[in-house]
Structures are given as C-alpha cells and as structure tokens.
C-alpha cells in the first residue's frame, strides 16, 4: 500500500477546498451510492469490507448500522465523534483541517445507508481551524448539491451541523456525547438501550468516528474486496497511526492495519532520539496498556493488540525512552483520568482520586510499603465497576505499568526518591 488513501490530500495547499477534492474523484462515491445502490446494499458493502470503528472500540461498522430499526416513524440521526481527546491522538484533526470533504462525503453516504436526514459532527472546541474548515466545506457542498434537499437530484435530503464541544474528554464516550448534544452534562448512559435503538432525542442514532466515516467512500468506490485486501482479514483497511513522544519523526502515518509496532516506529517514525533507547510504547492512546520494548513485535490491529494484553484504541502511539520515569508517566496518566472523570460512578471518581494521591507520593519519594498493593486493589475496584470505559481504561493502564515496570515503583519507595531526578 504505497499510495496513501485517507491522507492523499492532506499535503496539498488547497486540500481543504472542494475543487481539490473533486479533482481527485471526490463525491463519486456519493453519486454511485445514490445512483446504483439501495441503502441496504451500502450497508452490505460496509459489512463485507469488515470495516471496524476507528474511534477505539473496533466494533464492526456495518453491523452497527444494521441495528438501526427499519420502518420507524422517528427521525434517525447520524453523529460523528470528532471529540478527539484521547491523549496521543491527532488523526481526526488532520482529516478535518486538511481534507474535510472526505468526512462530509463519508457522512452523506453513511446517512443514506441508515436513513438519516440529519448529522451532527461533535468537534472538540479547541479545534478552531478544523471547525472553520468544516463550516466552509459544508457551505461548498451545499452549493454544489452534495448536501441539502434532494442530494444530486435524488429524493435523499441531508444536512450536516457542527456541534462544538467545550473541553470534556468524556464526550468521546458515545452516550456522554449524546447527553452533551442534548444540552446536558456529559455523563454516560446505562446501556441498553443502545443508541442505534434509542440515542439522540430517544431516536435511532449511529455514532461513528471521523476516520471510520472517511473510509466509507473508498469502500463504495473501490469495493469491499479492495479494503479487505489491506491488512488482516478480520481487522482490515488503511489505518492512520499517530506517533508522538520521544521519537525522531513524530507525525501521522497512513499504513496498512496490522503493521508491526516496531516497524512503524523504527522504519517510518525514525526510531528513538539520538543516544536513547526505547523503554516502552503506549500503542493506542493513554487508555491502552503500555507495552515494554520487548513486546514491540506486535501487529497494530484490534485482535493482535488485544491478544498481547493491550489495545489498538485510537492508534495514538506514544514512544517512551530510557530517560523517562515510568512512575511519573503513570502518575500523569492517572491525573488525566481523574481530572476527566465525569463524577457519575463512585469507583472511578473516588478510586482515581485515591490512586493519584498514592502515585504522587511514590513519585515524590514518600511512598510506603503496601502502596503498590493498594494501587493493585484500587485497579481491581475500578475495573468493570463503572458505566463507561473511562474507569476501565485508567485501571488497565495503571495495571500494565505496575506489571511491566514494578521494579521502578519499588525503587522509588526503597530509595525514597525518584531515580530519574
């Protein structure tokens, strides 16, 4: 896969303009979907492609769409999760800033498939440039008949609205996002009912990530077999990897799903900084359990990373080298989750508060015997005992740091200081 697909326009100076997008075959997938396929056929194409959600959970997209009930009188909604907040992740921002029409076409084709006439794109409020570019792109698409009443002369009506977030990580959780769209505090809902049945305004709702939606037009034009031919059959497709941290060439890389993590870092992102050695890598945003250097020969796809005890998540790859203190990294991650906990579930709200206090004192050289066992108990108390995955992500991350780098924690407690300072 030498030619980029998802990133083909991002380096163009005018990549955000409709003219650039159209010149490269843009909106042909929408034309094809409306002209040659029924909505159910589009759902089938996406099912056959084995596309799995790029937001983090990896749920099969076509299956998610097929849960939307047929023959209901209620309006159906499509929501795009563009609240990219998982630390280490910046792929959706780059798509929206530099190739927003790719997302808009993905929205239009997907809305046609599920029978939605309205889409809300929930963009995090910090992404001012992305929001402006999307607004311009929506106006351009309207003017050319790709959006609005009777899209491209068909009887499909479709409008896209932007909803700006206001700085809450929890809005990336799909039911919290729906609460936020309804004008409430973003606190997750108990499932079931699932959003496909009763989501936004209690109507059938599909929530998809930006990158997921950007894949859809390519599946329609190039076919599901093309998509499945890239990477592992059960977890295929082109994939965006966000590489950051202590690495020579941080950046966004489009490569096949399933590429080895070591290959991504060494061959594409330039490897470690001069004179340093890689100690560990977080492969999928800070919710994904850290992998020690010895485990880097793992495929970057949902199933391979799950089998290795971590997860692909949002593919936010954070490289940590031998100059970094793992206690400090773990502390910063748990501080983040504590700050972003919505406060609804006691294990997450109180457990993370407690964990932060213990971690900070260990890092400060004031840790006591029994602190690590206390952290183990806190992870156990949080994991699986909350409405949403925020608490789970925090517990899994901390557990992995304690498992793989326990000697660093012990060294802090025994020496009564941080060995890295």
């Amino acid at each position, binding site marked *: 896969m030498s030619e980029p697909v998802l990133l083909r326009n991002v380096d163009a100076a005018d990549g955000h303009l409709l003219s650039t997008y159209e010149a490269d075959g843009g909106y042909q997938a929408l034309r094809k979907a409306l002209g040659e396929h029924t909505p159910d056929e589009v759902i089938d194409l996406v099912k056959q492609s084995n596309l799995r959600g790029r937001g983090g959970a990896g749920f099969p997209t076509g299956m998610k769409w097929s849960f939307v009930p047929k023959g209901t009188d209620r309006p159906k909604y499509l929501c795009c999760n563009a609240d990219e907040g998982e630390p280490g992740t910046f792929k959706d921002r780059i798509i929206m800033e530099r190739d927003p029409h790719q997302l808009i076409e993905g929205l239009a084709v997907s809305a046609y498939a599920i029978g939605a006439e309205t889409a809300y794109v929930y963009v*995090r409020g910090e992404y001012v440039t992305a929001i402006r570019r999307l607004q311009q792109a929506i106006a351009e698409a309207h003017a050319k008949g790709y959006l609005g009443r009777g899209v491209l002369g068909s009887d499909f009506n479709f409008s896209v609205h932007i*909803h700006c977030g206001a*700085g809450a990580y929890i809005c990336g959780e799909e039911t919290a996002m729906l609460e936020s769209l*309804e004008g*409430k505090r973003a606190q997750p809902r108990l499932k079931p009912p699932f959003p496909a049945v009763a989501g936004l305004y209690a109507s059938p709702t599909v929530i998809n990530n930006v990158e997921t939606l950007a894949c859809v037009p390519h599946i329609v034009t190039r076919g599901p077999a093309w998509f499945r031919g890239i990477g592992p059959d059960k977890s295929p497709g082109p994939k965006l990897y966000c590489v*950051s941290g202590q690495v020579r060439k941080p950046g966004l890389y489009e490569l096949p799903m399933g590429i080895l993590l070591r290959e991504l870092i060494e061959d594409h992102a330039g490897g470690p900084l001069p004179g340093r050695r890689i100690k560990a890598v977080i492969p999928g945003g*800070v919710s994904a359990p850290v992998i020690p250097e010895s485990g880097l020969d793992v495929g970057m796809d949902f199933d391979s990373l799950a089998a290795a005890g971590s997860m692909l998540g949002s593919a936010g790859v954070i490289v940590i080298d031998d100059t970094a203190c793992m206690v400090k*990294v773990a502390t910063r991650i748990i501080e983040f989750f504590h*700050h972003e906990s919505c406060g609804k579930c006691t294990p997450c709200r109180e457990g993370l508060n407690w964990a932060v206090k213990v971690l900070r004192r260990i890092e400060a050289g004031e840790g006591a015997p029994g602190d690590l066992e206390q952290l183990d108990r806190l992870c156990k108390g949080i994991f699986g005992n909350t409405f949403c995955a925020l608490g789970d992500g925090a517990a899994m991350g901390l557990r992995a740091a304690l498992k793989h780098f326990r000697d660093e924690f012990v060294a802090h407690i025994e020496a009564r200081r941080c060995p890295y300072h």
Partner: protein
Amino acid sequence: MTMREKIEEAAARYPDRRSAIMPALLIAQEEHGHLPGPVLEEVAEILGVERIWVFELATFYTLFHTEPVGRFHLQLCDNVSCMLCGSEDLLKHLETTLGIGKGETTADGLFTLSTVECLGACEMAPVMQVGDDYHGNLDVARLDALLQGLRVAAGRVTSVEHASAPAPGE
C-alpha cells in the same frame, strides 16, 4: 448580528432548545470574555430554558470560564507526549517570566496561564494554545518570541526590541 440573533441561529439547528445551551454559551463567552451569573441568566432567558440547565453546563465544561481570563490565555498542554518533550521546563519558564502560577492572571490583565489536557496536536509537542491558535515544537526561545509577539500585538510595547527587555519577575 446581536448575541440574541446568533443564539437563535444556533438554536434553529436542533429540535430541542436545550441542545443550544452549549453553542449559546460559546457565543456569549465570545461576546463577554467570560460567563458571569447575569450572562448565564440572559442565555437562559433567550433560550427559554431552566437557569440551572445553563449553570450546570457552564460549570461542567472546562472551556467555559465563569471568572475573567486575561487577554491572552496561555494554555500549555502537559499531557504525556508534551511532558516527554519538555513541557515541564516550559511551564517553569512561563511561571518565572510572567511571575504567576497556574490558573493566575498577570496584574496587567494580559496573560492567564493554564495547563490543559491533550490538545490533540502531539505531532508538534510540546504545544500551547493561545486564543484560537496552536503553537507547536516549542522551546524556551520560541516561547519567549511568542510572548514578545503577543505583547507587541497588545500594543504594550511598540517593537520587538522593547519587548525583549526583562519582564517583571526576571
């Protein structure tokens, strides 16, 4: 457009006016700089929604400011990728240069300093958001140049040469 007209335009995008509280708060904050109680009450009145619904959002989401912020809000990311790339040194430098700590505003009202969670721009870590703009790949020299540029933009100094004079606290 007046604030009321902008809020009505936003409300037309949703089947339920409660959904327009977040966009309305962003519009009101743009207009007033921050969101004191009377502004929140005005938003509730324009939308015809319960005041508590407006207050609970203004205090839940971190981009809403119920207290005044300086003309330039320096929002330094200190999440993992930025921390690994040196954000702690940048924070220390900002605190020393500006003579304020996290969450504080300089006496002249020019700068408010905050640390924020991941800005989603880790490819250019360490990164800081000022107003609408992201500034990436920062080091101490670039940070100083940025601060100088902001002081010039604010008319507090007339040229870059003047701006390079030691700031209070140095």
